[in-house]
């Protein structure tokens, strides 16, 4: 039965134009990420060469190249932004649709007129959502490999493929997190659009507001893969920087940067420490969604918007 519910979920998603539009945007940006990375990197190398030549003509020594030994995967650094922006929004829409489409069609009541446990229903929905997200990220993975091969002029090594797979696995966890937010808000808030707005509010708080308080990152600074957190000289940030481990978007970006080695001075990937907050939140949200599904009002009035 879990398979039936999951398959229904996937069929329903494939008919949703909004889902397909955001999916197309994510895949397009995956392709563009490689090109943008290559283009900006190439330009900066030329800027460095011209700067060195100019300083040499003035009798000054050339500064060290800030891009020395930059790994080839760093060309995909923009993906660490597109996943929290487009990917997370896509996941919210997927989670949201998983609940509201059944409710709008009246099929939630129909499903539970059969001998089905609520936990079976939840696992079916989660399997369908995870299946959709895995398919999306697998497509992104293939596009990333193609982009890297074209831009770097050679196929990625086994180590690079492994790192890329690890990055997409982390991205899957991050997106499932927001799919659960979409589901939970759809279960709590009556009225599908308001539920979507609440989920969007949570996403904005996680993506833009929390990083400002924990790291002093202005909202638009959160759009740049290269960030420079504020120093803790101000009393305010001395206190709030202790909360940085709870800033999920920063944890995701830091872990991604370590995996893809996008910043030369970035510490090595520390799986347990960096993944713990995301994993803990994933478990907590999963439990909350299970409780909400169990408490879902299936009366005629409650089951429809």
């Amino acid at each position, binding site marked *: 039965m879990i398979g039936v519910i999951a398959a229904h979920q996937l069929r329903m998603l494939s008919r949703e134009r909004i889902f397909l539009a955001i999916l197309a945007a994510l895949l397009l*940006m995956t392709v563009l990420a490689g090109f943008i990375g290559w283009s900006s990197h190439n330009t900066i190398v030329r800027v460095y060469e011209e700067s060195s030549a100019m300083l040499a003509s003035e009798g000054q020594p050339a500064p060290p190249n800030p891009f020395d030994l930059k790994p080839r995967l760093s060309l995909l650094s*923009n993906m660490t*932004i597109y996943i929290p922006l487009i990917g997370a929004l896509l996941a919210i829409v997927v989670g949201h649709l998983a609940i509201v489409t059944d409710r709008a069609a009246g099929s939630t009541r129909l499903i539970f007129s059969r001998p089905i446990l609520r936990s079976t229903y939840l696992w079916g929905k989660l399997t369908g959502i995870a299946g959709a997200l895995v398919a999306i990220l697998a497509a992104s993975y293939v596009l990333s490999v193609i982009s890297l091969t074209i831009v770097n002029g050679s196929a990625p090594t086994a180590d690079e493929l492994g790192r890329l797979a690890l990055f997409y696995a982390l991205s899957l966890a991050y997106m499932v997190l927001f799919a659960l937010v979409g589901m939970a808000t759809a279960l709590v808030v009556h009225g599908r659009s308001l539920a979507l707005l609440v989920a969007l509010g949570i996403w904005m708080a996680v993506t833009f507001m929390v990083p400002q308080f924990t790291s002093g990152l202005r909202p638009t600074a959160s759009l740049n893969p290269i960030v420079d957190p504020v120093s803790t000289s101000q009393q305010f940030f001395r206190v709030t920087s202790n909360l940085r481990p709870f800033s999920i978007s920063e944890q995701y970006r830091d872990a991604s940067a370590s995996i893809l080695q996008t910043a030369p001075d970035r510490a090595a990937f520390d799986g347990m420490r960096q993944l713990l907050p995301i994993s803990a939140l994933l478990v907590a949200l999963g439990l909350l969604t299970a409780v909400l599904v169990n408490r879902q009002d299936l009366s005629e009035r409650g089951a429809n918007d």
Partner: protein
Amino acid sequence: MTNATLLTLAGHDYRAAFRNRVLAALLLTLLFVTTVSVLVAAFGYQAQLDEYERYKAAAAAAGIDTVAPLPLRALQLLRPVVEYLEIIGAVIAIALGYLSVARERGNRTLRLLRTRPVSAGELAFGPALGAVALITTLVVVTATIGVVSIGIWGHDWIDGEQAIKVVLWCIASIAYMGVFYCLGAALTARSRVLANGLVAALVVWLVVVLIIPQIGDTMDPDNQVPGGLFSALNLDKPHETRILANFGTYERVRNGIEELSLAKHYERFAFAILDVKDKYRGMSIGQLTTETRSDIIWMLAYVVVLAGALRMTVGSPAAQSGGDDE
């Protein structure tokens, strides 16, 4: 179009917006984050001012008369507010537009309104006027909190010229958010299922406010290294300008991408008028408006086009039909 009908519709929408708990929560969140961000910036500003005064005193004691002026301006502390309005303010405006149509359609009051002598223009622009009034309230309250915070905690009260600059920034913010209101209302009015209109507007927001500026920002060579590429290379502004002159085509492409975004035009105008960008400092208001005329024209063009779309969609009888999900 009569003023009384317009004002009645506007007043109704203004009051109804406050009754929506989700919208109220979004508004309060925006006020909270902007206030805290300005407060934090004001405390930092005060610390830098104190440090500068100590440095000046030490320099004077050492017999140095000429000390470079502090490269800080009070209005630049409003930068996080600009960015929050740019991102979250736009979502609030879309939500306002969506709710304005969804409310009337959900309550079946659009049909009722059409039985009265209300023209299509009044039907479209009456609620829009209410939304603009709400946006104005939000922007003015935010700006007032910002200015007062700078005065009290930053110890720097703005003068007359700076007050005019704040007013101009407020007008630009209202126009910017007004465009997103029109977008939310127009797309919702066009959608058979209300929620699809909201999601479609949010997809446009994602592209215009986040993706296009993000592409432009990450193509900027100076954004590729923490602290800035040219600082890392120990190059000053004249050197930077000379080098970038050799990358004209690249810069033109990058600028062209950014110019596609309304958010970027709003940001450029706001940063220029609020002394955020060094290159505009010391310019008069007249010079600033001349320098940013292209951004002003783009913003006006968006206002006109989206207001037209609002008139065509919300004012049309087709806006009455379709499903409702609220």
